Each structure stands twice: as structure tokens, then as C-alpha cells.
């Protein structure tokens, strides 16, 4: 790895998101799910995206593939992927070819990501045919290698139907599907959430190995701080569809700057000690009303709120080397 990449400054990002806005059409009007997101995903790094349920993490990664399902709609923005172009403006066929081949996604509900009526092996072949893979035999061999790596009996899995596999096995099969076409950018959206702690640890270990081995750019979407601390080089914290803080995971987790990040870290229960040492965040996650307010989306729940926060939305500013925070308390130096 070059020195440039180590510093992560001058290297071209693997994904460059600019001005991304995604809304969900509801009966009460458009609910913004991702708001004005600018984000550079550094190449060959593991980026963790963290936030509460409903903070827009999954919508953001689905938007990277331009696969936001209805009633969601991408309103504006661009998602530049080197070698592909802007996922949001290239034609549909090129988008389709990029999905799976350039950007592999292991999807939140990966246990149900398989066609129940076709054997896994056949679905691998379907994938290969869709992406014009010449040597399908070789593709099956790759699938078999990956499945073995993921700790499964590859022959049995390839000849099985979805209902013949356990939840954990299906999840791993989902990971295999994201990696099999040698996508350089791999997104795991809560991919290990449904697994027990031991399987989770072993799957994450394999992900880490493959990440290094293949020089992947990995995006981990999770609400588990432990996973981020363990795996990620960088962390992106989302609240109410906005990125409130981002930076190298070590420094963000040890010195969280945004009150929301601080709250998230305080809310983690420890293995030992009383459960009430974990402090839940007061209030409810951002909803439609919050978005109509002109101020900071976290204003209602913020202990450090100032009058200014109610009237103005803080913008994300670089506070120190490589760290950005969207909070007046941090960015204002008076």
C-alpha cells in the first residue's frame, strides 16, 4: 500500500458522493431520508456507517447503487465511481452491469436474498449469464472456493435450495454473491446482524481477510459500535439522513465530537457492570416534523443545544486532520 493511500488524502476516492438527496413519498408528503450528503469513500479502506434505525444508512448505500426501492426516490446528487461514472446518471444497462460487478452489496435481509425455487448453483449461473461471464465452470469453482472459505460445505450448498440452508448459511451465501464477480467495492448492510456472536465474529474475520487479500473497498453499515471499532478504518455517523460526523474510527470513537456520537457511545451497555451505566439517548429519532424545522435535526435531543441550533442547520466542517463534524458547538470558535 502506498504512502499516499495510507494518508488517504491525495488518492482518488472509490466512491464520491455529492449533494445526495433521497426522499420517501408518504401520505404526509416527502420524507427526506438522505439529506445533502457529501461523502468520499476511501479506496482500499473499511468504512463504517453507523447510526440509529431510520437514520438513512441503508437508503444511502442503496442510493450508491441507484437501487432505492419505491416509494423512495433520489431527488438530486451524484455518485461517482471510477471506471463506471455517475451511477445516478449513466444509462440503466450500464447501471445494471455495474451492480454486482463493480459494487457488490450484501443486503440487509440477506437471509431472504435467494430465489426460493432455484438451486444456489443455478442462481450463480444466472448471475454469470447476466454479466456475460464466459467461463461459467470457472465461476462455479470460484463460488465453491468462496463458500469453503466462508466455512461451508460448498457442494452441498450449491446443490441446495434456500429452504435447505440455515439463516447463517444464507447470510454467507449472500456474501458469496457479493464477492463472486470480483467487485472491488463491497457493501455489507447489516450483513452480520442476524448472526449469533460467534458466527458474526468468524464472518467478519473472513470479510477482513478478503478485504486485505483482494484490496477491496469495504463499506460496513451497522448499528453496532463494537463492529465499527473492531473493523473500520474510518467511521461515518449519520443522524436524520445527514452525516453528522466522520473521521478515522480510532479518533472518532475515543474522542467523539458531535453530541449525537457521544450519546451513541454512552448508550452501549458493557459486558460487566450495571446495565444502567448505559445511558439511552433521550427523545425519539428524527421524524417528518424534525425535517420541517430549519435548525439542527438533533436539536430536540441535544444536551448542548444553543439558541442558534434551533434556527440554523449546521454544515459539516473539517475540524482537525481528516475529521468533519456538523455541529456549531464544535465548529464555532468564538
Amino acid at each position, binding site marked *: 500500500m502506498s504512502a499516499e493511500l495510507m494518508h488517504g488524502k491525495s488518492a482518488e476516492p472509490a466512491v464520491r458522493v455529492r449533494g445526495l438527496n433521497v426522499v420517501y413519498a408518504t401520505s404526509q408528503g416527502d420524507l427526506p431520508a438522505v439529506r445533502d450528503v457529501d461523502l468520499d469513500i476511501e479506496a482500499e479502506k473499511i468504512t463504517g456507517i453507523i447510526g440509529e434505525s431510520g437514520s438513512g444508512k441503508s437508503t444511502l448505500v442503496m442510493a450508491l447503487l441507484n437501487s432505492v426501492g419505491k416509494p423512495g426516490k433520489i431527488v438530486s446528487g451524484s455518485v461517482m465511481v471510477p471506471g463506471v461514472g455517475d451511477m445516478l446518471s449513466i444509462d440503466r444497462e450500464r447501471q445494471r452491469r455495474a451492480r454486482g460487478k463493480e459494487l457488490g452489496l450484501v443486503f440487509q435481509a440477506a437471509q431472504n436474498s435467494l*430465489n426460493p425455487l432455484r438451486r444456489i448453483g443455478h442462481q450463480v449461473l444466472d448471475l454469470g449469464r*447476466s454479466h456475460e461471464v464466459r467461463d461459467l465452470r470457472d465461476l462455479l469453482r470460484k463460488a465453491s472456493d468462496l463458500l469453503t472459505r466462508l466455512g461451508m460445505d460448498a457442494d452441498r450448498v450449491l446443490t441446495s435450495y434456500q429452504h435447505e440452508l440455515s439463516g447463517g448459511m444464507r447470510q454467507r451465501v449472500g456474501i458469496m454473491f457479493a464477492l463472486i464477480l470480483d467487485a472491488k467495492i463491497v457493501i455489507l448492510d447489516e450483513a452480520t446482524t442476524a448472526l449469533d456472536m460467534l458466527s458474526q465474529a468468524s464472518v467478519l474475520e473472513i470479510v477482513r481477510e478478503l478485504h486485505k487479500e483482494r484490496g477491496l473497498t469495504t463499506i460496513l453499515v451497522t448499528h453496532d459500535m463494537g463492529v465499527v471499532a473492531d473493523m473500520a478504518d474510518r467511521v461515518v455517523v449519520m443522524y436524520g439522513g445527514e452525516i453528522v460526523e466522520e473521521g478515522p474510527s480510532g479518533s472518532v470513537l475515543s474522542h467523539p465530537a458531535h453530541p449525537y456520537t457521544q450519546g451513541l457511545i454512552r448508550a452501549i451497555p458493557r459486558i460487566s457492570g450495571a446495565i444502567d451505566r448505559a445511558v439511552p439517548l433521550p427523545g425519539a429519532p428524527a421524524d417528518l416534523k424534525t425535517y420541517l424545522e430549519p435548525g439542527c435535526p438533533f436539536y430536540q435531543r441535544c444536551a448542548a443545544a444553543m439558541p442558534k441550533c434551533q434556527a440554523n442547520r449546521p454544515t459539516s466542517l473539517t475540524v482537525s486532520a481528516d475529521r468533519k463534524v456538523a455541529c456549531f458547538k464544535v465548529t464555532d470558535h468564538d
Partner: protein
Amino acid sequence: MKTVMARLAKRLVAGVIMILVVASFTFLLVRLMPGNPVEAKYQSLLLNGLTPVQAMDEVRVMYGFIPHQSLWIQYLHYLGQILHLNLGQSISYEGTPVMRIILGAAPWTIILVLTGTVASFIVGILAGVIAAIRRNSPVGSAITISGSVLHGIPLFVMALFLAYVFTTIWAVLPFGAPYNAALTPGFNGPFISSLARHALLPVFTYALASYGGWLLTMKSSVISVLGDDFILASEVRGLKTSTRVGYIAHNAILPLFTILALSLGFMFGGSLFIEDIFDYPGLGNLLVNAINNRDYPLMSGAFLLITVAVIASNIITDFLYSVVDPRIRR
């Protein structure tokens, strides 16, 4: 394969038992009906001057049993006759075996209903997939509306309307009778083309009337499959549209197989309105005539046929299911 055979055998045994139960039920029903047609016939034969012995013999030939025997003996006799495929003799078509009458009427119904059902199934399914995938576009809405409207029009209204349009206003098709009576039935060109021309209108009516049902059922099935996670996953993996539509259609069509099999079973009940309006001597007409004439042997024969057909089609669906749906294969 062994388990499949065992399953099939189990199903067959269950089917035979069901048929026996229904046969027993029809047997009792006929005997519980007011008016005792057997006794009436016996009495009328006596009045016609036959001796009691002759009259009894006559009745025995006609109904296949002797009225003064105990119910239990009659029942055993009846079952024995069924096993020999003897359904007794018709009253309205005097002296003709019920079996022969039913076999004579069945082909007309099968031509009509089978062709109509298969045609409407295929068209309805395809239209249903399009209507579901394009449900937010004018094309999808138009298809859905066509389904609802056609589904809502009663069969006899549709039949009369089409008959009026195509045989009166724009007289391109013949009306009434299954074929041109001037031709000799057989495997010859003119007869077959006449058969086809006469069948066109009733088949079309039947297909048009059932198309809406298939379309709407398939549409809702496709929409529910579209919401499944694996469809989103297939998009995210960049599968070709044709492959994805194949995934969707395969998963969505499964529930419709049951309905198709049941409707093919009920086909043997005939389609009364169509047969009546287009003057087809099919099973529907036969059943109505039997009821009007209190032809009990013919009635119970027709009911038995419907039962056997429905049960048999159920067994076949069950078997087909285990071929098309791996989750049931075990």
C-alpha cells in the same frame, strides 16, 4: 423418487375413499328425495298392465336395483355397479345407460371449456405479469381495467352480446349447434373446419369471461412477489431484466396452479349458460335436463363424474406441485 411414489399412492387411496364417500352420499340423497321415483315408475308400469314381476324386472333393469330390498343391500349393489362403471340407466332417455349418455356429452364440454380455460389462463397470466410490473403506467391500468370489466360481465350477457355482434350485425360466424348438420361427422376436413368455426364463438366467450379472473389473481400474486427481498437482491446483483421477470413469474404462478386444476376439475360440471345459448349438447345441458326431468340415475352419474374429476385434478395438482416447487418435494 420412491417417496414421490409413496406420496402418490397415499393420495390415490385417499382419493378413492373420498369418491366412495361422495358416491354413498349421492346414493342416500337420491333415496331421501321426496316422491320416490322408483316407486312411481313401478306403479306406472303396473298401471300400464304389466304384472308385478315384469314391472319389478323392468325397474331393476332401469335403475339397477330392486326397490323392496333393504337399503343396505341396495347400497352394496350400487357400489358393485359403480366398480363395474355401470351407473344405471337414464329415465328421460329411456333405457340408455347413463355412462353412454355422459360419455356422449363430455367431449362437447371438454372442447369448449378446456380450450377456453387454457387460452384464458395463458393470456391472463401474461397480461397479469405486465399489469403488475407496469402498474403505475397507463398500459398497466388499462390492462387491469380490462380484467375487472370482463370479470364483472355475466357470462350469459357476454355470450348474447358476442352472438349478436358476430352472428347478426356482422354475420361472420355461425350460431347454434356444434357443427353444420349437413356434414357427416368424422375425421374429415369440412367437418373439422365446421366444428372449429362453430366452436370459435363459445370458446371465445368462455375465455373472455375467465380471463379477468386469471389476470387479477396473477397481478396480485406478482405484486406480492415483487415485494419479496430476493427480487430486490436480484436487482442489486445486476441480474438481467429477463432473468428477473422469470424469477418473478415462476414464484407468482405457483398459487394459480391450484385454481387452474380445480377449474379443470369443475369443467366436468359443464358451462350451462354457454352450452344453452350456443346450443351445445354438453354436460351442463345434460345436468339441467336431468334435474328438470327428475332423471335421478343421470343426475347421480353426473355428480359422480364431477366428484371424480375434481378429486383427480387435485391429485394431479398435488403431484405437479412437488415437481414445480422444491419446498414441497420431500
